[in-house]
């Protein structure tokens, strides 16, 4: 049962902010991660209603988070990891992974494998989204002459 898109965006942002604290990011960095998580969730939600897209919503969400984090890192002159890690956690397919575990405990091995594979596919889509976003954004920034500055990787 979803609480509606605005509430979901708020919850995604809140969880990303909390993960920022768990990973010891600064308050402003955690806030930036919260904004990225909400933007990514909105992109993912936009595609989630379209049938037959499988893990594309996860990919889109991670793409927005990854691309946004690269740009923010350049603007704020901070490592990308600081923003991308807390922001991407809400997309991790924890529920699917849990359902897979439960199926195995109940001796429903086929269902367990099916759900496990779903979780693995979603995780792969998120990884691909982050990777593609990083490669594309860096290439674009280099083209615009906004690459790494002294002291910054």
């Amino acid at each position: 049962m979803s609480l509606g898109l605005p509430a979901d965006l708020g919850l995604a942002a809140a969880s990303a902010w909390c993960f920022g604290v768990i990973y010891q990011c600064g308050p402003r960095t955690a806030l930036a991660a919260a904004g990225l998580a909400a933007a990514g969730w909105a992109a993912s939600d936009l595609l989630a209603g379209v049938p037959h897209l499988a893990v594309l919503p996860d990919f889109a969400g991670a793409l927005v988070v990854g691309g946004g984090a690269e740009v923010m890192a350049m603007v704020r002159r901070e490592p990308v990891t600081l923003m991308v890690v807390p922001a991407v956690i809400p997309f991790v397919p924890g529920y699917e992974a849990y359902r897979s575990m439960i199926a195995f405990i109940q001796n429903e091995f086929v269902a367990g494998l099916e759900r496990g594979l779903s979780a693995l596919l979603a995780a792969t889509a998120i990884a691909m989204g982050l990777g593609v976003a990083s490669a594309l954004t860096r290439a674009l920034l280099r083209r615009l002459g906004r690459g790494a500055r002294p002291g910054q990787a």
Partner: protein
Amino acid sequence: MANPGSKPLHAAAEVGLLLLAAGAEVARVEDTMARMARAFGLEAEVVVLPTMVLATAGGQTVLKRVRSRRTNLAVVERVNQWSREVVAGTLSLEGLWERLTTAHAIRRYPGWQEMGAAGLAAAALALLFGGAWLTLPWAFLAGGVAQAVRVGFRNVRAGGVATDLAAAAAAVLPALVAASWPGTRPALVVVGGIMVLVPGVLLTTGVRDGMAGDLLSSLARLLEAAFIAAAIAAGVSGVLYVYVHVGGRWP
């Protein structure tokens, strides 16, 4: 005590060690080390592997082994700032050494704040995944307990996958109580609790290392993330298996 002749190289290697242990990606560690060495007048070759950093310049080589790793993005942030200061010439080698001696203690938030944040994160995620309001306090408890176990293990300097296994097992306990509470969804309590334990830094840096061509580090990190995921699954499954097989009610 470092050899004065190779002190800049030692400083660069210490910085690399610090970054790698805190969870920075290999490309960043190598780049930061090379920039720092260059700022101190050394044209260094650096190699960073998942468990060691190696820097060589002017016939001298420094090799440092990573003995313990602990994700701490505050260290990555702080060292990034020091790197800028060194390159800009506003931080001397002595000043950098001084900061490096206390760098292991860098923490922005105390353990109790981490636990609170973990509880809130678990509660927010439980709601996000479709939980009812009654699920919220249990999920908060699950996240808080999971992080408390992690902080406890960290404080006694214990680590490895045993931490994640114990934390995952502990995160299930509030869900077992919630299972007999009407109107709650214990499944989402568990999910909220274990999401706190997701090895986010390892997964993200593993992917980024792979994209940067640092395949060895990428494989090592993703393998470590897989071990942690397996430990979490074992912790959760173990407790639930016993609970269900002694007649516990699990919806």
